[in-house]
């Protein structure tokens, strides 16, 4: 009784409803991707690189259709022609149109680079996910195996695999790069998974009876994607380099199929007489490697909140 009375005499007034607006969220929601985009936009070099890469991809896809030549036919009336109105990038020592060859070669190089990066990363993520999630003996054995495999220099191993599988094939190169390239991403994914697996949402999922496979593929691996995307972007130029390297020592894609590495390696021999044959593919290889590196640097800053200054 006493209490009710006291309450009634207490000098509180009922608030107007409008006062609640202070609780309202005025700004629009920011999702993770929007946040990443906002951080990414600030890196002008990365943005420009992304645009250049997009243009390169368009040219690689549609460039060969822009003129009437194909990459394997010889035009004996125009051998070693410098860039002209007919042959925009000139022709090579066999009279083949270089504009077409550069873009078809770009297709081969980029296809190898992208597939030979994605496959190892997928394998590495699964291996790393399993190793990190189960821990204990499984983890120890897998990590020791990876230690040993990573001790063997990848390029030597690549060369060996290409010798064994037969050189000249696009698929051979992809298989070789996949077999030698998954260990790094496995280690990275394991490290990430070890950090994430102690978090509450994983425990909640476990409590609800989710299988290990579901936890690894639905909860753990998606959370490593950010770092993995950066890894992929920085690995692609390494594979472009590796393909050019192998072509240069005679283990690349077999003629008449061009690749950027092969165009460079053929043209290096006639550099003194026909510098344009060498410089044009080199410029595109360098530009692509440069842009992927700058893009990767930008993505790393955008995707990893810890790195943001």
């Amino acid at each position, binding site marked *: 009784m006493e209490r009710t009375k006291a309450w009634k005499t207490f000098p509180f007034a009922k608030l107007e409803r409008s006062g609640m607006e202070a609780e309202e969220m005025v700004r629009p929601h920011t999702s993770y991707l929007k946040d990443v985009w906002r951080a990414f936009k600030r890196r002008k070099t990365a943005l420009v690189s992304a645009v250049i890469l997009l243009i390169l991809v368009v040219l690689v896809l549609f460039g060969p259709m822009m003129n009437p030549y194909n990459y394997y036919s010889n035009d004996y009336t125009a051998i070693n022609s410098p860039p002209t109105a007919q042959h925009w990038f000139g022709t090579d020592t066999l009279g083949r149109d270089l504009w077409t060859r550069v873009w078809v070669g770009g297709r081969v190089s980029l296809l190898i680079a992208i597939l030979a990066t994605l496959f190892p990363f997928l394998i590495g993520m699964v291996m790393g996910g399993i190793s990190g999630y189960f821990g204990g003996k499984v983890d120890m054995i897998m990590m020791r195996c990876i230690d040993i495999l990573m001790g063997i220099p990848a390029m030597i191993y690549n*060369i*060996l695999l290409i*010798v064994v599988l037969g050189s000249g094939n696009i698929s051979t190169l992809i298989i070789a790069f996949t077999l030698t390239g998954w260990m790094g991403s496995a280690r990275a994914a394991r490290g990430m998974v070890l950090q994430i697996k102690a978090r509450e949402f994983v425990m909640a999922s476990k409590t609800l009876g989710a299988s290990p496979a579901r936890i690894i593929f639905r909860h753990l691996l998606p959370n490593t994607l950010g770092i993995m995307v950066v890894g992929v972007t920085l690995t692609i130029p390494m594979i472009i380099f590796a393909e050019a390297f192998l072509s240069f020592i*005679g283990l690349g894609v077999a003629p008449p199929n061009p690749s950027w590495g092969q165009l460079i390696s053929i043209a290096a021999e006639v550099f003194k007489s026909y510098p344009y044959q060498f410089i044009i593919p*080199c410029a595109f290889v360098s530009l692509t490697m440069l842009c992927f590196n700058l893009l990767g640097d930008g993505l790393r800053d955008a995707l990893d909140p810890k790195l943001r200054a």
Partner: protein
Amino acid sequence: MLRYALKRIGIALLTIFALTTITFFLLHLLPGDPFLNIKVPVAIQEKQMAYYGLDKPILQQYFIYLKNLLTGNLGTSLKYVGRNVTDIIADFFPVSAALGLIALFFAELIGMTFGILSAQFKNRWPDYLLMFFAILGIALPSMVIGPLIRYFFGVELRLLPVSGWGTPEQIIMPAFVLGLATVAANTRMMRACMLAVTTQDYIKTAQAKGLTPTQIVMRHELKNSLVPMLAGIGPAVASVMMGSFVVEKIFVIPGLGKHFVNAVTTLDYPLIMSLTIFYGTILVTMNLLVDLLYGVVDPRIRLD
């Protein structure tokens, strides 16, 4: 420390063993034999197979190969008939090693200097200029920069010899091409290390004590940045070693890299196998040395 060292040595030995085994079986499981395309009577072919020990069962061949490896006998080349792989290595590896070591030494020195300068002038024009060079070094692979500088300095300007081996002038261009990627990587890494160290408390203490900026850089920042830089030596050795395949081809240098490439293109299997194992062993040993050194320099590493 002993436990750490033993563990590292164990892993290195296992790696070399795995490399040997994988290499041997990959190359021996190939269909056909090296004399398939040479038209000789069957009796001679059989004699040749017996001479090279290829008529025995594969496991027995494997154990014979392992035993030979341990005694330093790396087998004979198929193409250079009668030549020992050991002799080939003894003849040509010193050239590659000399070139590689010179390239590596200057690449580490220049890369670190650039990195320190870049960090000192952070976000000012010297930094931008050096970082621009560093990114160029990454974007210009050896097969692009090699023929280019060979043409400009060798043919156009006639400053340096275009090819060959023996005089100091002939070393400059190949060493530059070989070390460029390492310079670029080291500049970036050294800059990052130096900048990470700058924010540490002990730097603030040093400043409070009244040390000059030069003293702080030389005594504290540089020394603390060197530890993570050690880790870069392993990849740098690998980069220089692989780079020698390309550089020795461009500049016509009689090194082992050129022989490895020739062996690969002419499918000289015994030579490929032995050189693969040889290169692998060198790299594993280098990585082992770096790991051990790391443990000596930084006590925290030994604990895990």
